[in-house]
């Protein structure tokens, strides 16, 4: 039997709308396929957390469809298979890691005590110490461990790696890649630190002012996109259909191109640099304004 598009994706969002005072999410559509890591990037206030809260039904949507594991996202049983990490640790300061387990094992039917202990050991989190005495990195690690210890099929992280030092971030990337060894599992992961996403994400979605700007395979972004740097005169000779956005500085013009090899072939001796995810994000967001 053919699987529907909703069933092939762990998250399926179509035409999602939400209106606030002064901000709106405007027909947001994207997918998180099974077995993939999808990075969700955008500046602060672009609508990342709003989107995540709508998916989790913490906020009520005005319009549109959200399916998780092929089911309506409001069905309570869906939540059992999702692990969520927000940018702040929500555990009370006086609790110990072992207290947290007592609480969470009561909430999640599939809570795995031995897995939890294994993770605590691996990431050197003490079981009997008040969480209030933890560093920011330790708190974040504990939140991520808690989100994974009930063996979810979908992990949603909102700015979860932001406060972590490079060593811990690397350990987390390891954990995430371990998580998707199971082809049914996926990770949806918002961040404004694009280097983590550049490393492990399969797909990247850019959101800006409540709208999805692009949804692309990461490899296509980092290997095909490029930045042309040239003088104004040279820039005038470049056909507008060959670049996506450009910005003019006092000394030169820079433009973002979709296919750097094609541009190199078409315009001889032109300087085309590789573009990082961060470059691409900045170009789309700032556009010609810079």
């Amino acid at each position: 039997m053919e699987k529907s598009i909703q069933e092939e994706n762990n998250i399926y969002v179509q035409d999602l709308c939400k209106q606030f005072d002064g901000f709106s999410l405007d027909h947001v559509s994207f997918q998180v396929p099974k077995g993939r890591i999808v990075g969700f990037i955008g500046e602060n206030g672009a609508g990342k957390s709003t989107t995540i809260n709508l998916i989790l039904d913490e906020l009520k949507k005005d319009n549109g469809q959200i399916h998780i594991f092929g089911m309506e996202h409001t069905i309570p049983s869906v939540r059992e298979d999702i692990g969520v990490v927000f940018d702040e640790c929500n555990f009370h300061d006086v609790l110990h890691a072992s207290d947290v387990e007592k609480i969470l094992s009561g909430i999640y039917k599939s809570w795995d005590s031995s897995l939890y202990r294994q993770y605590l050991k691996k990431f050197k989190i003490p079981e009997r110490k008040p969480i209030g005495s933890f560093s920011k990195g330790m708190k974040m690690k504990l939140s991520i461990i808690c989100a994974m210890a009930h063996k979810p099929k979908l992990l949603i992280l909102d700015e979860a790696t932001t406060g972590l030092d490079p060593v811990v971030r690397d350990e987390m990337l390891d954990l995430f890649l371990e998580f998707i060894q199971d082809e049914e599992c996926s990770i949806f992961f918002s961040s404004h630190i694009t280097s983590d996403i550049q490393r492990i994400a399969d797909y990247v979605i850019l959101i800006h002012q409540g709208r999805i700007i692009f949804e692309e395979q990461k490899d296509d972004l980092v290997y095909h996109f490029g930045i042309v740097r040239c003088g104004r005169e040279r820039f005038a000779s470049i056909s507008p259909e060959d670049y996506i956005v450009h910005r003019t500085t006092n000394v030169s013009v820079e433009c973002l191109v979709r296919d750097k090899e094609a541009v190199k072939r078409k315009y001889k001796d032109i300087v085309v640099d590789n573009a990082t995810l961060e470059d691409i994000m900045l170009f789309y967001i700032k556009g010609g304004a810079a």
Partner: protein
Amino acid sequence: MEIIISNSSDKPIYEQICMQVKNLIMNGSLCAGEALPSMRALAKDLHISVITVQRAYEDLTRDGFIETVSGKGSFVAAQNKEFIQEEQLRVAEELLQKVAEIGRAHGISYEQMTNILKLFYEE
């Protein structure tokens, strides 16, 4: 299986994986029928995305170096090494013919060309 990825290389990571696996097969380090690590396991070991590895494996399959059996994994294809080498030599010949034409037409000396080729070989 040893694979070394350079992040500063201009070559995309999937191309680096693809070339290194081909190399391991051609020099006999990987034998026909031998299992390759699963795409997900290799992605984890290299700390890169699964799709990147998948793309390398797809290219390897297309070029006849590996075979993927769904549910079982990927294996080094049983092929004739000499045959592949001969075929690739033909491809190289064609490209070199172009090089010679460009050189002749623009007065680039044979020495200059061979020096460039030598440089690339040593890279």
